[in-house]
């Protein structure tokens, strides 16, 4: 299948940035020349060996790649079915997969001579990664973060400030991740000459969804190789699973496996309090419909009038009302399956991971793990699952403590 270009799932997007009907370039005219420049620069860098050599060097010595592929033995035994591997991207510098992509974009920004970097952030992980790489290269960094998230992710706000970034609390709209993205776009429209917008997920106008995917695809490439080293030449996973906010860690794991038809692909969306009419969730695919926001057409949480709704999740990194356009396409053509997991299920998985494996996971991958916990017991012992452990939970301990009724007040 992989040799047959016409049937490959890996050829998207087309020259208009479309994955089927999804994606595109729905931006104001002011930004259009900028994203065309970016696309040209990216196309150029993509085939430039020196660009990837610099990436590899930083991935190895600064980020700590490759991240291990770890056989979670006790978890596997406790669940009593499928053999579970965790792709340990939570061990990366800054504690999540986000830095894989940030490095790529910042190197591009440098090639383009841009001196000021802006980013949006929800949980703060993308903001921290961007602030980190900007510090590494001496670039000015401004991070837009919803005022509500500034409150619930205080440790990451402080980290960004320590790293020299300016954190702008966003109060426009409802003060959440989507509003932070709006304000970042407003900044970019205003500062067109010197500013590079470093988007944190596989969303936004073309070329962002493809470019961010390509930078994150290191996750799947490594995992594919590592599994063979541990399980034998040619052994593919039977199921791969990742959590989805905008969908970047998931696309990174999925992409290198799209043309391996024996591999089941499952994306896990945040079900919040449950996917129902009250819309207290962030499951764009299971609870939304196609629309246009932030430069691309994709599944969105919206009302009958096409007004965008706020997502809801215990995890600040997942509550985005959209999803990357490539996921919308994979969903519609049926190559990947998408499910949702509630806050309560994610919290349970979070604790299970701590006590079974000695790994404190972020709340985002806890959603993926909760789904692993649902399906693994029913699967045969020779069924191999790879789950993307895309972030560590240090940032979430306050949220989890609150949810579990534990008083974390410290006194000095």
């Amino acid at each position, binding site marked *: 299948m992989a040799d047959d270009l016409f049937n490959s799932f890996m050829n998207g997007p087309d020259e208009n940035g479309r994955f089927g009907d999804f994606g595109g370039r729905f931006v104001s005219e*002011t930004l259009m020349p*900028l994203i065309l420049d970016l696309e040209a620069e990216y196309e150029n860098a993509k085939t430039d060996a020196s660009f990837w050599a610099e990436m590899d060097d930083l991935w190895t010595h600064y980020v700590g790649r490759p991240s291990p592929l770890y056989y979670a033995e006790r978890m596997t035994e406790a669940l009593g079915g499928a053999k579970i591997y965790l792709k340990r991207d939570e061990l990366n510098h800054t504690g999540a997969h986000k830095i894989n992509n940030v490095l790529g974009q910042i190197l591009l920004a440098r090639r383009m001579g841009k001196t000021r970097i802006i980013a949006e952030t929800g949980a703060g992980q993308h903001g921290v990664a961007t602030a980190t790489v900007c510090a590494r290269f001496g670039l000015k960094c401004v991070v837009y973060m919803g005022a509500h998230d500034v409150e619930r992710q205080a440790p990451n706000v402080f980290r960004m400030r320590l790293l020299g970034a300016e954190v702008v609390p966003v109060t426009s709209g409802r003060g959440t991740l989507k509003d932070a993205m709006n304000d970042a776009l407003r900044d970019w429209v205003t500062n067109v000459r010197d500013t590079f917008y470093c988007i944190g997920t596989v969303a936004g106008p073309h070329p962002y969804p493809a470019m961010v995917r390509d930078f994150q695809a290191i996750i799947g490439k490594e995992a594919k190789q590592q599994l063979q080293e541990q399980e034998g030449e040619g052994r593919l996973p039977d199921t791969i699973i990742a959590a989805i906010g905008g969908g970047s860690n998931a696309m990174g794991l999925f992409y290198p496996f799209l043309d391996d038809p024996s591999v089941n692909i499952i994306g896990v969306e945040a079900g919040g309090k449950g996917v129902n009419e009250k819309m207290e969730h962030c499951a764009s695919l299971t609870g939304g419909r196609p629309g246009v926001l932030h430069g691309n057409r994709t599944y969105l949480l*919206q009302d009958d009038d*096409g*007004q965008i709704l706020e997502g809801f999740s215990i995890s600040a990194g997942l509550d985005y009302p959209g999803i990357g356009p490539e996921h919308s396409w994979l969903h519609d053509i049926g190559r990947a399956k998408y499910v949702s997991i509630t806050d309560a299920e994610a919290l349970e998985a979070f604790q299970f991971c701590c006590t079974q494996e000695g790994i404190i996971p972020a709340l985002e991958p806890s959603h993926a793990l909760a789904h692993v916990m649902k399906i693994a017991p029913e699967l045969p012992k020779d069924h191999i699952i790879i789950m993307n452990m895309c972030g560590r939970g240090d940032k979430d301990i306050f949220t989890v403590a609150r949810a579990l009724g534990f008083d974390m007040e410290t006194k000095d």
Partner: protein
Amino acid sequence: MTRIDAKFAELAAAGRKAFVAYVMAGDPDYETSLEIVKGLPGAGVDVIELGLPFTDPMADGPTIQLAGQRALDGGMTLQKTLDLATEFRKTDTTTPIVLMGYYNPIYSRGVARFLEDAKAAGIDGLIVVDLPPEEDSELCIPAQEAGLNFIRLATPTTDDRRLPKVLQNTSGFVYYVSITGITGAAEAEAADVAPEVARIKSAANLPVIVGFGVNTPEKAKAIAGVADGTVVGSAIVKQIGEGKSPAEVLAFVKTLADGAHSA
């Protein structure tokens, strides 16, 4: 020939500049908004730009964002925006209405159905901020086929290489965005705008109207003086946001219109 084409032909014949006013439909509520819109032609407005509220107006500054929120909080929808236009048309059959907004509410309704309803409501043209020429097949071309003008934004980042593409499927007029930035943020400068207007006019046989950063009668005069007309949005919307009565808002609009018309 749309009402927009007719209006610009009339203005050109009279040697007058156009004054275009933007208000958000349903701001602060449906009734007050309708009263303001009905009064605009009498206050000297040549073309009405009617904002279609959207939750995520990424090209707008705080003033218009808040106007959209007020409208949405008051229950405004695309349907009610069209209803407002329909009501207006009962009292005025010549003043052009340009609907200005973002694509998602239109896409959500369905392009074919939207175009039919917009035409029936007496809408004459569309400005959809997040539809650049690269996405013309979405709405621009169907709109022109349906007899509505599709008015494109040209900006300071639209260079000579790109300009023909931007002008290609544009009709009615060209809206030159005087600044890089969002609505209501920076001030337009006539000296910067003049050569840009000339550049666009040499490439297209269409009126060029300049907006963003025009907020006083003096500025309206200065900018209209170097173009075919000017648009004021945030400055008017700000008055509505401050709770001014329709009469007060319209009195302010009249000073702006007089400024533009004195150019």
